[in-house]
């Protein structure tokens, strides 16, 4: 039997999640020993539709061409793993879905909008194909990704982290920025994975790791309003990096008026 193989694909994204590989240093070289990297454009390997064991997908699906590509990726991969907020939940660019702004924005920006073949919505990969495992985070961190490779290749389902950032703060003995400084922290509804980075830096979490399991967004919304946030501010908190994730989308839309207006 040959080495297991992987591919890294890019869709609509900032390239930040693939850096989990390219920033891995020595571990990248070790990984290249363990597995056969068949496709990874930024690393210089191109064979887009080679059959692989794991296809990592970065980015959301936002053009007609991407729709075709993702279906072909599914067809030639044993496991499909989404890398980060864009691929898992649509990412920041899914904000264009809110008011159906795609066409308007395209015309505002391009002299030749006819050449820009975008879909009306920017959507997560799972809106179009079956996804075997989702990694959250904007960006994902290297540990998550390398752990996923190890676990999938040894046949064990990767560990899911569904706890809240709040729990991580307690573990790290970080003082609560909501209680001590009145900051509008989303830690109570956000999944861990970052090690409570923002609270440890004295700032509020903005939920880049997406919604935790059983996130009580209604209670947090009331709490945020109690801290003096306007309805538009509350909407902006939820409708940010993971705006298209169902629980955030729903919580945000309760307070949302077109264009985040306050009246």
């Amino acid at each position, binding site marked *: 039997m040959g080495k297991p193989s992987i591919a890294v694909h*890019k*869709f*609509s*994204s*900032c*390239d*930040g*999640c*693939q*850096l989990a590989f*390219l*920033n891995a*240093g*020595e571990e*990248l*070289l070790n990984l*290249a020993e363990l597995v056969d*990297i068949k496709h990874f*454009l*930024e*690393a*210089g*390997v*191109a064979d*887009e539709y080679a059959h692989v064991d794991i296809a990592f997908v970065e980015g959301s699906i*936002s053009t007609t*061409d991407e729709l075709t590509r993702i279906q072909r990726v599914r067809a030639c991969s044993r496991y499909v793993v989404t890398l980060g907020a864009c691929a898992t939940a649509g*990412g*920041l*660019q899914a*904000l*264009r879905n809110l008011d159906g*702004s795609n066409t308007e*924005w*395209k015309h*505002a*920006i*391009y*002299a*030749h909008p006819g*050449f820009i073949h*975008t879909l009306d919505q*920017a959507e997560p990969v799972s809106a179009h194909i079956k996804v075997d495992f989702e990694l959250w985070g*904007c*960006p994902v961190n290297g540990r998550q990704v390398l752990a996923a490779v190890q676990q999938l290749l040894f046949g064990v389902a990767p560990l899911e982290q569904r706890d809240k950032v709040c729990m991580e703060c307690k573990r790290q003995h970080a003082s609560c920025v909501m209680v001590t400084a009145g900051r509008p922290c989303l830690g109570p509804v956000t999944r861990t994975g*970052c090690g409570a*980075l*923002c609270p*440890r*830096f*004295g*700032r509020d979490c*903005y939920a*880049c790791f997406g919604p935790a399991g059983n996130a009580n967004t209604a209670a947090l919304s009331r709490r945020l309003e109690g801290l003096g946030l306007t309805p538009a501010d509350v909407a*902006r908190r939820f409708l*940010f*990096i993971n705006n298209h994730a169902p629980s955030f989308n729903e919580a945000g839309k309760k307070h949302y008026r077109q*264009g*985040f*207006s306050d009246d």
Partner: protein
Amino acid sequence: MTKRSVSIHVPALTRVEGEGSLRLRIEHGEIQELALDIFEPPRYFEKFLEGRRHHEVLDTVARICGICPIAYQMSAAQAIEQAFGLDPGPWVRDMRRVFYCGEWLQSHALHVHLLAAPDFLGFDSVVGMAARHPEVVRRGLRLQGLGNALIRLLGGRSVHPVGACVGGFFRAPDAAEVDDMLEQLRAALPDAHDLVLWAAALKLPQDEQAFTCVALRHDTDYPFEQGRIVSDDGLSVPIEQYEDHFIEEHRPHSTALFSLLHGAPYLVGPLARLNLNHDRLPAASLSLLRQTGMTFPSNNMFHSLLARTLEIHVAIVEAIRLLENYRRPVSPQVEVTPRAGIGCGATEAPRGLLWHRYELDDQGIVRAARIVPPTSQNQARIEADLRRSLRQFGLNRPDDKLRLRAETVIRNYDPCISCATHFLKIGVTRR
């Protein structure tokens, strides 16, 4: 010249950030069509900044590019502070420079080793190169790792760091963390030194050509976060006047916009910076450059690689200088009071000048935003370079040689295609 028709289509360029492709059609020994297609999907950042509060902007613009998020955060912070009439003071300025050093280190080391060097040493990718040149690759990965560590010192993580804000930083590192960092930086100086000498000894293509360089220039320092916008044909303007001299146009084959200075292509990035600022190099980097025997300004585009390695040295030297004088401040940020206004920010991203303008209302809500990234500024230059260097290389050469040369030329600019598509409003359009 033989009568040969060649059509080369490289559907997906490798070792660039983002997605681009190249179309080249040669008929009867002449280039009939040449286009660097950028088909990275639009993500409309400038549009969804509208309606956001000033304190959400840095976390938003970071997501334009995972490789240079600090550049986006720093240009944005500067612009918003200018609109609010706010001076964050010397501690914040120094630490922003340190933060920026981390990004140059990380981004340049990534480009030199993982993206560019395989071209000059004859490999497809770093994986193949690592087997034959393990020490070169390891040294590169160490420097890249050091850049990431320096970013983490102030930002918590290296991609989309969380530490910076309008007015300064959320947290000031303590003395022990800074000492530890200083030790790592000092230990890396020999690596950076050897890297520059290694790059100077590489057999790079000789490819002299005329082009206009644009970069920031500061009274005393090598430019990261401050200066006037200057060019080597005499432009010298404050950053607020950018729009009087530079325009963007949208061409059909691309989702990026092309920038022109007074109607002509120009270069931004490490070579442009070094050509315009070699007299601002820190003393240690200048003497290292002398040791190589190379002189700048240079009009060989392939000297970009050397410039990038020298800037790795500059970043380490600068970070050491600034951190040696480190004092933990009473507060890492100054208080921010919004007021209605327009502000501009310009800093030197690893790939060159990154210009932002924001219009904010009295609540500090963004009403309009414009962002001009380095890659759209270089795009017209890349195409012009491709035309002439392929002609000079010889259009008669076999397809795969032509194709490799074309890719090498493009990669030498370190184009970041993700950056190039975040969308700027059109200044001028021509049909």
